[in-house]
């Protein structure tokens, strides 16, 4: 581990000042990903700004009838929060499908969005990786890529974003509140993460001076019909090969609104509103779900070991939508 200096921020403004005071500064909250990466020299911050004492650790109602998740609320506290469980069970399920109880107790909601890819090559500093060291090349494209992306990839990077939580947040159309030198701004969750393009080293649209303060959930939570389906190589403590956050609003047999977000397939949670719209006003049938599934993998590209994800993603979308549909509506 490279030597670093450490400071504890006492408010958001101070945190922003600290993180901009020195190049190579990073925030640390739960540290569940950052510390691992520092030990293996993938992350080499010169200055750590501890934000764990900031007053961002509550879940509150928003004026719009939604919930505001403070950036420092732990994943566990979010998943088991009564209102989240009642109004946004899709989010609770997604969080609990990830990591382990121990990790969820430490990991924060803001940090969850900022975790780095789990690509094999990103984690091994003896191998070329454009995300870790721009310009060195992508080892995964012609190497081992079972876990890696099939959508939105570039010739420079085929990494995936590993979060389960973010997939549910994308389906729920959550927004991310951030604060920087120039004050506060709101980024839709779906626009928060970037595609790799030719700058795969940059994961998100968060600016270097910005800190996540909260994640806002809109009022509509799809609590009646939802599924988080996570497919992986073992039953727990594994990242998704493919995951699907599906939510349906159905009137009789007719779909009023559908949401589908995919995890494990791209550099960001993958949502195609136009494909979701195929269901609008249509009967909630397997055939129609199949159409959505086909639309989602349009343009998908396999790299050998991960070719199967294209077919798996389709099947998972259909299954998730069927499960959501078949849920007993809550009384």
């Amino acid at each position, binding site marked *: 581990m490279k030597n670093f200096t450490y400071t504890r921020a006492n408010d958001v403004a101070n945190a922003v000042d600290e993180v901009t005071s020195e190049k190579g500064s990073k925030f640390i909250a739960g540290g569940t990903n950052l510390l691992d990466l520092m030990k293996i020299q993938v992350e080499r911050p010169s200055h750590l700004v501890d934000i764990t004492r900031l007053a961002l650790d509550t879940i509150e109602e928003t004026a719009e009838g939604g919930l505001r998740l403070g950036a420092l609320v732990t994943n566990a506290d979010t998943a088991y929060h009564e209102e989240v469980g009642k109004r946004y069970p899709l989010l609770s399920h997604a969080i609990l499908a990830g990591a382990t109880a121990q990790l969820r107790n430490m990991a924060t909601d803001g940090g969850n969005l900022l975790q780095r890819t789990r690509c*094999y090559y990103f*984690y*091994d500093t*003896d*191998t070329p990786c454009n995300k870790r060291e721009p310009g060195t090349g992508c080892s995964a494209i*012609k190497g*081992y890529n079972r876990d890696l992306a099939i959508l939105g990839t570039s010739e420079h990077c085929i990494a995936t974003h590993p979060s389960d939580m973010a997939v549910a947040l994308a389906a729920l159309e959550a927004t991310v509140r951030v604060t920087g030198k120039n004050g506060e701004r709101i980024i839709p969750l779906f626009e928060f993460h970037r595609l790799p393009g030719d700058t795969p080293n940059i994961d998100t649209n968060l600016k270097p001076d910005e800190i996540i303060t909260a994640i806002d959930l809109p009022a509509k939570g799809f609590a009646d019909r939802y599924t988080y389906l996570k497919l992986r*190589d073992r039953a727990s403590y594994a*990242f998704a090969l493919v995951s699907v956050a599906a939510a349906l609003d159905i009137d009789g047999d007719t779909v009023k609104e559908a949401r589908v977000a995919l995890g494990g397939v791209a550099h960001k949670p993958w949502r195609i509103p136009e494909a979701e719209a195929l269901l609008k006003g249509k009967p909630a049938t397997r055939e129609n779900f199949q159409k959505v599934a086909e639309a989602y993998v349009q343009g998908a590209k396999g790299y050998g070991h991960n070719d199967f994800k294209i077919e*798996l993603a389709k099947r998972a979308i259909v299954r998730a939508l069927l499960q959501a549909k078949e849920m007993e509506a809550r009384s």
Partner: protein
Amino acid sequence: MKTNEIGKPTNRVDGRLKVTGEAKYAGEFNVPNLAYGFVVNSAIAKGKIKKIDTSKALEVEGVLEVFTHENRPGYVWFDKNYKDMDAPPGSPFRPLYDNEIKFSMQPIALAVAETFELARYAASLVRIEYETSPHDTDFETNIESAYVPEEYKSGEPSEPWGQPDQALASAPVQIEGDYTHSSQHHNPMEMHASTVVWKDDGKLTVYDKIQGVMNTQQYVTHAFGMQPEEVQVISPFVGGAFGSGLRPQYQLFLAVLAARELKRSVRVTLTRQQMFSFGHRPKTMQRFALGASKEGKLEALKQDVFAETSRFENYSEDVVIWAGVLYKCGNVKLSHKLVELDVYTPLDMRAPGGTTGIFALECAMDELAYKLGMDPVEFRLKNYSEKDQNEDKPFSSKELRECYRQGAEKFGWEKRNLEPRSMKEGHNLIGWGMAHGAWEANQAQASAKAVVTSDGKLTVSSATADIGTGTYTVMTQIAAETLGIPLDDVTFKLGDSSLPDAPLEGGSKTVSTVGTAVKSACDKVRERLLKLAQQVKDSPLVEASLEQVIFEGGQISLKSESSKAVSIMAAMSQNQGKAIEEEVSSKPADNQSDYARYAHVATFVEVKVDEDLGTIKVTRVVSAVAGGRIINPKTARSQILGGVVWGIGVAMEEDTVMDNNLGRFMNHDLDKYHIPVNADVHDVEVIFVEEKDEIVNPLGAKGLGEIGIVSVAPAIANAVFHATGKRVRELPITLDKLL
């Protein structure tokens, strides 16, 4: 035989030490002035180190030295000095020997500093320039150039018997198939570590993670030109090893080197990632061809094995012996060839060769049974072997039929419909599969010492190991049983090279080997105690022979009249306050070699496979084991449970992925190398069938460390076939193979 301790489900005698953290492992022995080493590993798979620059590392305050091939001390010259007790034929790898890179992640430097963190940081500052050569790690493309080694470490195929080619050609029912699994790594919980304590006179005390301290002692003395009295090796606890601790690993060599050079105590601990930089279960492909009569009689069997090895050692294991042990067949041809790659030498891993060979054999037999339209159990009964055909010897005991019977009954096998895809529950296809297996029940030579002190307490010792299997507990039981005293009055010591000699703990032979030595030493003590008891005033035992007395409840009493007794304390009072001490070396009885000695198992498995998504859940496992006399049903059950859980991993998860472009294993941590988690393990039932064996060793016990794993992966693969109708011949069976 009446027993008080043997056969009881006794808790681990070291359980409290383990759960309270008092049990110390090799990397936990703290001594004053300890320095820490961190290993630098090669980024390339083949080539030379052109330049290695340690200057930046040495500038860091607190960094003591960075050892490389350039500044290492002179080496003991001969190759043989680096051969440890488990070394395969060939030329052992020598860390820091020269600038040549033979495999990716090869250790190429050791940074030593005042703290672990500093050493790790210093290691990251070492700059290396390589001259790369083309490497070849591609197993598949090298199968054609596989070769027969001059010498096999293990698993040399028997000469063919019968007329295999003709019999196969004329068999009315035939199957053939290639069965593969990739490299797998041991991943014990405890990473490899050595703490080398340097004393002013140059003597060393070495705390090492090893499955037998004598191997470490031999290796250090040979490789560094030292005498056994100069090197004491201590290893009281091992946090799992599964074969990875059979050979001393490179952290030991580097720690000893650094300690001797710096004249200071040094510890080197490997990281989880570095645990993927040495031995592993070799990637193996097996080509099977089977022929049977229409009635289901096995007429011909051919098995050709191709297994990975390094370019410097010829590793091989018992992959081809299982057909001759498990099936009666008159026409058999076996081969075992090696595929040389730019990798580190493979290494024994739980049931080496058995896990591999029985997987393929049992899947192939299942395919044949299906082609015959026969129930898999019925097929196995029809081709049941009464002798080991590899060596043409009868079995010392074999209650495998009883394993089938009890296992099938517990599982409910008779309700099975042979037809694949015949059971369904919602989206899930349900499949039932079975397989059987065997594992060697060998005994080796070992010594043990028993000491009874005047307070009537017994200490027994032997330089064996407890790799988590329960050696401390079982040996304590055997000793307590033999002398008829409570467990609390017995202390068993192991893991110290100053104790009586014992072999490596491996091959499921420790109970058999060390247990026999412990019993023999305690038997000698019985003789001495009886003599002393006879000297007690008015002793009722004066005329008694050993056969006429029993040792029980701390007393020596007449079998014929139990009230006539002398307590062990009273007997000891005749010894002038001195202790009784007996050391014995026990060897296998001569008649053992007339018999084939194996433990057997039958495994029944239920899986549920999602028909759309391919996810597999192993919902039920019944494992019926014939393992001779069970010394401790509790630790024995744990061994089988562990084997079953690992078998689930072998079948569905374990897979060290080689990137052939880089010549490097890429999933080198526990996030990416999957082993089962709790959520993967559901109902597991273990049955021990009764089996008497008076040949295998005086205890009648067979080792259980490996028999639990061997038939699990094929039973799962066979169940997956029954569920889906799809035969997957390449492990692990991941969901993509079922889409």
